């Protein structure tokens, strides 16, 4: 742990122009601290803000200058305080000078560590770099950057810089100058500067978790037995997982102060013949399935016969990039970099990568990463041409499937589908426009929702909840952060032309398949407010009134979908007679059903219909119709055996419609509530 201990100084611009995104800055920085609290408990963090009215830093006290830079927290091992500090950043009042902040940051690191801890120190600057920085006392600004870089290099300080600017903001010469100065850093030292233009990307731009990458393979990439290139292989992508949470036992009494609250998990293997007999581990043997048979094999036997390829990375050949379709990539991605410092390897990789790029080719490799791996990997090597001068060219490597991994299902060719499945010319044009306009990579703006700057919303939510819980033990799961909503919904501020979203669907007609209606109670047009569909899935009556009616004009209540038919009829506005007719039809329908069947399922259906009728009568202000009908039913009960049915009504809370629900009713609320109960007691 201590070996990878990292010290980070966060340099945060809190000047007035940054106020709009300070919330996001607060969030992403507290995330960084939170992850350290879990994965890097001995890491150290300092917080420096600039652009404040006040000044508080050691350099100012010692040599003067460096105004408007405040050290909120000195370099200390992470603790809860750090998150508190970061969640309540001050709102500054003056334009910040990021260069001053950088110098303060470096000064802090040098004072704390001196010549030690090289390569494990990081400065993270978040700014909009909109305002000019002060001229140095001597030399040019460029000289100043050079001097700073000298210091950073000498002390092994890494530099991360995130520049936030709103999209479409006017570029000024000041910005150009600042950007140029910041770029100088990445040319001189180990530094990374990224520009982001949305709050969401800002959340994704900072590396919040410090993972020491480990090589998957170091050694020769063999072009042939005679020609080898020294490479190191790393994972380029690897899913950051949801933290594995341990199980907690709350069985121990609260009074027990020494309770461990631990949970043990026991595995027991029991004989099938005698379920009470536990078979000890030494009496167990592994069996592998082969068809219906199970073949027992001891580990030693298995070891003797199993597939044992030699560790190696070998070229099978090159092929046209078009032979490898993108969807065959199987796994997370590897990166092959030439052995660091090995000039020959760097040149060899560069030559092949650039030739591949020019000729649009890729290479097929066979890889066995480790001795004793037990399987081989076939994959495709694609070039990664570096655009930065001091980063060598490299390759990406994607695993490809074996013959056994592919299911060759056959699908109908689009051309052979019936013509009703094909879009008309006009529809096709609408689709073309839609695809063209709903553009997430517009020119003059950064690509929106680029994976490289898009944080995992689940993790974000988890860490926020964790922090919340640590303060309020009974807090609920917070909703998804607003700036992250951009990735779960079409975001209105992304598309200038809102008409588009409305226009496109108008060209197409969708309707529910009537034959399938019964099984699918899904509403395909969701109400905008309804984000969870469960409501409509559970309750058949909640299927959308308006949508259904707009499809066809319903004139009768059919057996298939009485409720929808009823609702559709109620919603018809072409004549007032439909409401009356709908209520009448529904009443008859329910009465029929009850008379002709005494089975439970019919009752259930009748209850649903009655519910719909009740709802409809309230909406249409026809409470008397419903109440009269229900009382009639009650009276009928004496003839037919409907006692169970009234029990169902009770449990479904179907009562008479009260005055409160519909003014025309002449039933008081109390009476309405008591109705079925009364009926029940009266019958006994």
């Amino acid at each position: 742990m201590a070996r990878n201990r990292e010290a980070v100084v966060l340099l945060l611009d809190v000047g007035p122009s940054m106020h709009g995104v300070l919330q996001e800055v607060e969030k992403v920085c507290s995330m960084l601290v939170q992850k350290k609290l879990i994965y890097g408990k001995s890491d150290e963090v300092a917080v420096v803000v600039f652009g404040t009215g006040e000044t508080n830093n050691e350099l100012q006290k010692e040599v003067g200058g460096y105004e408007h830079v405040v050290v909120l927290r000195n370099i200390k091992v992470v603790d809860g305080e750090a998150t508190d500090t970061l969640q309540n950043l001050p709102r500054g009042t003056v334009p910040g000078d990021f260069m001053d902040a950088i110098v303060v940051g470096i000064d802090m690191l040098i004072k704390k560590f001196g010549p030690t801890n090289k390569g494990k120190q990081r400065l993270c600057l978040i700014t909009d770099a909109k305002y000019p920085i002060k001229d140095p006392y001597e030399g040019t600004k460029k000289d100043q950057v050079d001097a700073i870089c000298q210091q950073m290099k000498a002390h092994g300080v890494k530099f991360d810089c995130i520049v936030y600017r709103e999209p479409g903001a006017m570029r000024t010469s000041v910005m150009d100058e600042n950007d140029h100065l910041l770029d100088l850093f990445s040319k001189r030292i180990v530094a990374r500067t990224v520009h982001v233009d949305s709050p969401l990307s800002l959340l994704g731009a900072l590396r919040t978790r410090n993972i020491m990458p480990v090589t998957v393979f170091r050694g020769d990439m063999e072009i042939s037995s005679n020609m080898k290139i020294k490479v190191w292989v790393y994972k380029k992508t690897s899913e950051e997982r949801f933290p594995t949470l341990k199980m907690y036992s709350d069985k121990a009494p609260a009074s027990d102060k020494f309770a461990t609250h631990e949970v043990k998990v026991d595995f027991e293997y029991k004989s099938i013949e005698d379920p009470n007999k536990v078979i000890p581990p030494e009496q167990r043997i592994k069996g592998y399935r082969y068809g219906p048979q199970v073949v027992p094999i001891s580990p030693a036997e298995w070891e003797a016969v199993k597939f044992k390829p030699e560790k190696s990375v070998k070229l099978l050949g090159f092929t046209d990039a078009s032979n490898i379709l993108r969807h065959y990539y199987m796994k997370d991605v590897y990166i092959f970099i030439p052995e660091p410092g090995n000039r020959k390897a760097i040149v060899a990789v560069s030559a092949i990568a650039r030739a591949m790029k020019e000729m649009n080719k890729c290479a097929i490799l066979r890889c066995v990463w480790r001795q004793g791996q037990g399987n081989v990997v076939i994959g495709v090597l694609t070039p990664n041409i570096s655009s930065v001068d001091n980063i060598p060219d490299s390759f990406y490597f994607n695993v490809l499937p074996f013959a056994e991994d592919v299911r060759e299902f056959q699908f109908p060719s689009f051309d052979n589908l019936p013509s009703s499945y094909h879009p008309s010319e006009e529809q096709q044009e609408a689709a073309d426009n839609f695809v063209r306009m709903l553009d997430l990579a517009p020119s003059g703006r950064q690509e929106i929702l680029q994976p490289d700057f898009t944080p995992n919303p689940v993790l974000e939510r988890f860490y926020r909840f964790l922090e919340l819980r640590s303060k309020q033990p009974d807090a609920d799961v917070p909703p998804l952060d607003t700036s992250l909503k951009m990735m779960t919904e079409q975001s209105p501020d992304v598309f200038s032309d809102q008409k588009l979203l409305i226009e496109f669907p108008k060209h197409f007609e969708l309707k529910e398949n009537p034959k399938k209606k019964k099984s699918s109670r899904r509403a395909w047009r969701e109400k905008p407010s309804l984000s969870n569909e469960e409501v409509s899935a559970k309750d058949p009556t909640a299927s959308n009134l308006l949508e259904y009616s707009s499809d066809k004009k319903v004139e009768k209540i059919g057996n298939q979908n009485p409720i929808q038919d009823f609702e559709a009829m109620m919603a018809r506005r072409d004549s007032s007679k439909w409401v009356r007719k709908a209520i009448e039809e529904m009443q008859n329908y329910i009465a029929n059903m009850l008379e002709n069947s005494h089975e439970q399922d019919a009752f259930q259906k009748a209850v649903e219909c009655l519910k719909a009728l009740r709802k409809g009568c309230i909406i249409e202000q026809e409470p008397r119709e419903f109440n009269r009908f229900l009382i009639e039913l009650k009276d009928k009960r004496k003839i037919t055996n409907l006692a169970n049915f009234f029990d169902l009504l009770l449990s479904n809370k179907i009562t008479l419609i009260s005055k409160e629900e519909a003014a025309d009713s002449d039933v008081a609320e109390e009476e309405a509530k008591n109705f079925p109960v009364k009926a029940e007691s009266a019958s006994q």
Partner: protein
Amino acid sequence: MDLDPEGIFRDDSDSDDEFYQEKEASKELVVYLVDASPKMFAPVPTDEGGTKETHFHIAINSILQSLKAQIIGRSYDEVAICFYNTKEKKNLQDLSGVYVFNVPEREWLDRPTARLIKEFSSIEESFMSNIGSRYWIVSGSRDNSLYNALWVAQALLRKGSAKTVSKRILLFTNEDDPFGSISGAIKSDMVRTTLQRAKDAQDLGISIELLPFRRPDEEFDVSIFYAELIGLETDEIPNFLPSASDKLEDMTDQLRKRIFKKRKVKTLTFSIANGISIEVNTYALIRPTLPGAIMWLDSVTNLPLKNERSIICADTGALYQAPPKRFQPYKNEIIKFSVNELSEIKKLSNNHLRLLGFKPLDCLKDYHNLRPSTFIFPTDEEIVGSTRIFIALHKSMLRLRRFALAFHGSSTHPQLVALVAQDEITSANGQVEPPGMHMIYLPYSDDIRHIEEDHMAADDNASRATDEQIKKASALLRRIDLKNFSVCQFTNPALQRHYGILQALALGEDEMPDIKDETVPDEEGMARPGIVNVIQEFKNAVYGENHDQEEDESAAGRGHASGASKKRKEMTEAAAKESSSRDWEELAENGKLKDLTVAELKNYLIMHKLPVTGKKETLISRILTHLGK
């Protein structure tokens, strides 16, 4: 159950995600119905003109391949192998001309076993003597072997309800006109009854698929008879009717495409815009195949064991029925979460696919990948009009070279996905790539590592290849070109070996099979002078003329500098010399060993390659043991 006990198929980060485990939706019953008429045994010249194969041979071999694939991939499916136009008969109804092939300890329609595969693989040798070939439908004969065959197959498939089980008959024949040799009323009668038989089977939910062979210089004309038998007028079949073939690879290929019935993973709602949604089905076309689950057995009885997991409270010893709460230590506190809260955290939106917008294809980088892709294809089953919108978007995306970015709100892994439109690609053997979209799971910024930047050369610029070097590399690329590389041309050697061993053990064979590893590079091809030259030229261009020499020198230099091994050698020699000057037997005998110094004792140990650690007493006792005292 542990899916991959040895970790054979896990290299670094494979998850135990349910994503990879296909649901066993339904099982499949298949009857392979093979025409064994004399025509099937007529030799067919292969392309090379040399060896002659028979259609029967091709049919047997392709079935064998698919049985082997089945026992690995879907061993719970059941198969029966049935020949018709045979001399002998063996079937439930005792109909003539139909022979159901089987091995002991197996029902006629049952899961494939090692023994079935074994015996089936050698069936050709004894076929003529045991089963025999005879064409029954001739004038004057009242027997209709095709009719009988369909009847037998249908009877075999009587198992299981059509709702949960899919039932198929795969028919191999090279006779496009089975009733050609007869005429008149008998013919029309036979045709009618046979078609009726097939229709009855289809009405029972059995699908009949035809795998026709083409005879030399003669096309297989489906329209004569079989079109009606397999019900060609239904809408999907015309797309899928395989072209007749006479080659083993083609037939194996076609059978492979058909042997796994298309199964959808699920139906997704795909929200397009403004609250409008269509429906799409998802299919797992590419998933890593792992060796089957292992089972723990009682080594005494060889009976399977039942695995029971119990969750016990360490404080009270109480058993948990439901999974207990989870916790995360945080700021010296314990923060607890209920299982519901955890799933709520992961639930970001409903389980929809929500379109966010479109991007040019080059925004999808090679490193934007985490898991195997999922295929999506539209369905009008519930929402009429879905396919039309899908096709319109599909066409536009292809034409404008864009992919769609969407959010997939699954309950375990809500993720951004890229939907890449794929146009249909066909070859002579049918569909190679189906039309539709592939859903590619994109990483988040948290998942992407900045390896290149971590190895940034801080001071100087990284070397780049010169144009000359790139030119040499281009020559290399052109030379070592895999022309017709197809992604899945290799079988997985580890998996093949795994099952090869199992098959041998299941059959009690002593010899372990020799599985060819298809993935090793083509050494022979690489050794061709043209290629060797071009590699050498490239090597000289990037490494310089004297590379090997330099390497040797630097290796030798390393040898000097480290010299650890050399030193060790010297030490051993010295020790041997030193220790051999003493008579150890005698010293031990007289108890004089303790008079020697530790260094002197160690000499003996070094000479005999024994451990030299421990105290003096330990060393002495070690020497004594070695001397056998």
